[in-house]
């Protein structure tokens, strides 16, 4: 039982070349893998663009380009928040409800056809405040009461929708009266639609938050292992609440922009956004389990879905089949992406 091996071993000297070689292999593999996934998404996107432009020459025009960008703007903004939430390993289903509540609050406090008060910029503050309250409520219920985010945000969807419905009441549809704001979202500035500029700003800020701030890094850490986050003394609670608040704020911003885009206030102004945003995040390659993924990938995902939808209409696919074609392409894309990584020990949930 008494060992003398070690002292001898030290005498032999520690040969670290094997370790060095392994380290360099690791680095090379990591670098390649970092590129591989977004690359296959970009390839898929390129294939779609080529196919659609062959099917209809109007597909590759500036005006359609701007159209696609306008349509992707609101999902992009909301998806930045959704990505953060999914990176936590949670999910935010409340998107459409928050959009409705925020949009209704905003338009009823802005110059609108129903009359009432016009609070100008304060309308933005109060409306986003509503979004913030909903987000913080989701976050707190999720973290403090430990209710799964799926249920919290599902409930919050209905709560938001309920608030919007009650605000809507039984009066006329509120229409936007401010001529400067009407159609603002799709107006072109410096070659791009205004709403897309907003989306770019949000994406930029999102990337900054994720890459370079405490909230962002702890978010990734929580997605990897919350147990370790807690035992490392990191502020898991605050970060989770903050992420839900950010997500709700962005949904709220999306709700206001959607209201501007439609020119009328409606409790269901966000309808359909959830089913673009979540698939976009997933297609982008962000893991639903949390910890892996990023905002730029989500951006690709949103573009993929928007272009797919736009391209199917432009190439005249019968509308009954559109969901099937989208679904089939989605299945093909994820199977294609996962095929090379198949391994008998890999766990995909």
């Amino acid at each position, binding site marked *: *039982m*008494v*060992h*003398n*091996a*070690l002292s*001898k*071993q*030290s005498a*032999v000297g*520690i*040969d670290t070349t*094997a*370790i*060095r*070689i*392994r*380290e360099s*292999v*690791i*680095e090379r*593999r*990591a670098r390649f893998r970092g590129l591989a996934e977004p690359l296959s998404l970009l390839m898929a996107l390129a294939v779609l663009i080529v196919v659609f432009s062959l099917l209809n020459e109007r597909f590759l025009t500036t005006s359609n380009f701007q159209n696609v960008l306008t349509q992707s703007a609101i999902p992009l903004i909301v998806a930045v928040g959704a990505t953060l939430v999914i990176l936590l390993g949670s999910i935010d289903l409340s998107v459409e409800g928050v959009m409705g509540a925020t949009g209704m609050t905003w338009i009823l406090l802005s110059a609108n056809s129903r009359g009432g008060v016009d609070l100008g910029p304060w309308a933005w503050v109060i409306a986003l405040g509503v979004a913030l309250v909903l987000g913080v409520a989701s976050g707190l219920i999720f973290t403090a009461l430990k209710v799964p985010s799926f249920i919290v945000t599902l409930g919050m969807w209905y709560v938001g929708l309920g608030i919007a419905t009650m605000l809507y009441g039984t009066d006329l549809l509120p229409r936007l009266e401010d001529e400067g704001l009407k159609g603002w979202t799709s107006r072109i500035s410096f070659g791009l639609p205004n709403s897309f500029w907003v989306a770019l700003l949000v994406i930029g800020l999102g990337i*900054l938050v994720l*890459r*370079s*701030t*405490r909230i962002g*890094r702890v978010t*990734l*850490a929580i*997605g*990897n*292992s919350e147990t*370790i*986050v*807690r*035992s*490392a*003394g*990191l*502020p898991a609670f605050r970060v989770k609440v903050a992420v839900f608040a950010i997500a709700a704020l962005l949904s709220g911003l999306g709700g206001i922009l959607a209201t501007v885009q439609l020119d009328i206030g409606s409790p269901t102004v966000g309808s359909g956004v959830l089913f673009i945003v979540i698939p976009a995040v997933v297609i982008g390659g962000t893991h639903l389990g949390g*910890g*892996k993924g990023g905002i730029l990938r989500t951006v690709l995902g949103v573009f993929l879905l928007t272009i797919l939808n736009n391209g199917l209409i432009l190439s005249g696919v019968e509308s009954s089949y559109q969901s099937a074609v989208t679904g089939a392409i989605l299945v093909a894309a994820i199977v294609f992406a996962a095929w090379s990584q198949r391994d*008998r*020990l890999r766990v995909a949930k």
Partner: protein
Amino acid sequence: MSDVTTPPAVLRLDAVSKSFGSNRAVRGVSLSIQPGQVIGLIGENGAGKSTLLKILSGNYRHDEGTIAVNGREVQFRGPADALRAGIGVVHQEQSLFTNLTIAENIEVNTPIGRGGVNRLGLYNWRRLYADAAQALDLIGSHLNPKTRVSDLSFVDRQMVEIARAIRVSAASHTTPLVILDEPTAILERTETAILEREISKLRDIGSVIFVSHRLDEVMRICDRVVVMRDGELIADRSVDDVTEEELFRLMVGRETHAAVRNRRSIEPATKPVISIQDLTRAGSYTDVSIDAYPGRVLAILGTSGSGREAVARAIFGAEGFDSGSVSIAGYSGRPSIKKAVALGVGYVPAERKTEGMVGEMPADQNITLTHPGSAAIGPFELPRRRLSLARLWFEKLDIRPREPEHMLQDFSGGNQQKVVLAKWLNSSDLKALVLDHPLRGLDPGAAETVNAQIRSVCDDGTAIILIPDTIDEALDIADDIVVMRDGRISGVFDLGHDNPATLDLLERML
């Protein structure tokens, strides 16, 4: 223990206790640590070492007693408080964020406004990488701080953890206290050597609490050894006045059991149970041929990166290979885990928590998961019989506490390992057992029980393929030794007639 008041003890525990329900994991532990001391903390699996350390790291709150750091009494409300007090920890369980880079993991606790995090809370990546590289350099590692932890091997991960613990301690302005809970359990000897050197260096800047089941290591590294048993601190000795045997007795409560293995030679007619021929996997191992015979223990030695684990996994069908063949009991078709198990192979993986056990399942269900034995009739399970079957194994392998209906994750590491072993032993027809670091994290007493069990299975005619922690473990139990280096076999010994010295083996490994 010591009446000297200057300098104040880095850490002083006074009658600290902690219970989980009715289980008093730590009972009235008093201990004081002076600056520059390396304290070895040893004890059986489940003795309460980790629990004590988790109290110190703020993960658990103690029920009774006081803790003073640098002479000031502290109340840790959470891990953050402990960090602030200058206590850096390497937990027994792996605790790195595998999706983040090495640098982020090391710098994860850097307070805002310091190091790579500016006052606005924004990260300065260049600074972060530089700091991390420096921290790694301290422990002799040259890993690129930009590497993601998921790409690292066990060993490298452990290095990162230690670098982080040291960094946390050094970042506070107090005398650092570094707590290492079994940091060497998953390290190979070469890495342990580096680590030992580093721990010795830490003496100059602070103090260390070091937990290990390897008594020789403890004797070499530490100044003082404290022994825990059943949650109590039962001995506190200077390394100079204690021997390994004495420590063993203190821990386990009995003398070491030195069994000498009667080695048998292979009878001429015997066919190997497992025979691998020219097995090659690019970048991992090349032209490996090994035969494992019934009733014999075959140990594969090698350093990390030698490819021995990959070979073991290939035998079990868990990983593919590029060329060559694996034949189990005459079958050499397409390998898969299911096929291997059907042919009577068992595998105890090195990563027990993730691959070896379903932690959130009761121990009895883990035991019968693969081979239900008498606990199932056809597809139907019989919970009562399952429980009594599990009780049998609990007795036989001395798994404690004797409560097979408890979640496996609530057992201590050593006992979990025994349950994993029992899962395979429960087979009525176990032809071969592949053991990847089976004694990892086991206390010497438990290690002996497990070893005895392995021997007994082997004597019943099962072939054992063992990837041991140490050369001595191999010499202790093996009939055959295969040495691997850089993916190739560099030596084969039949201990029936060869008698290799440790140094011979070591030379072939390095």
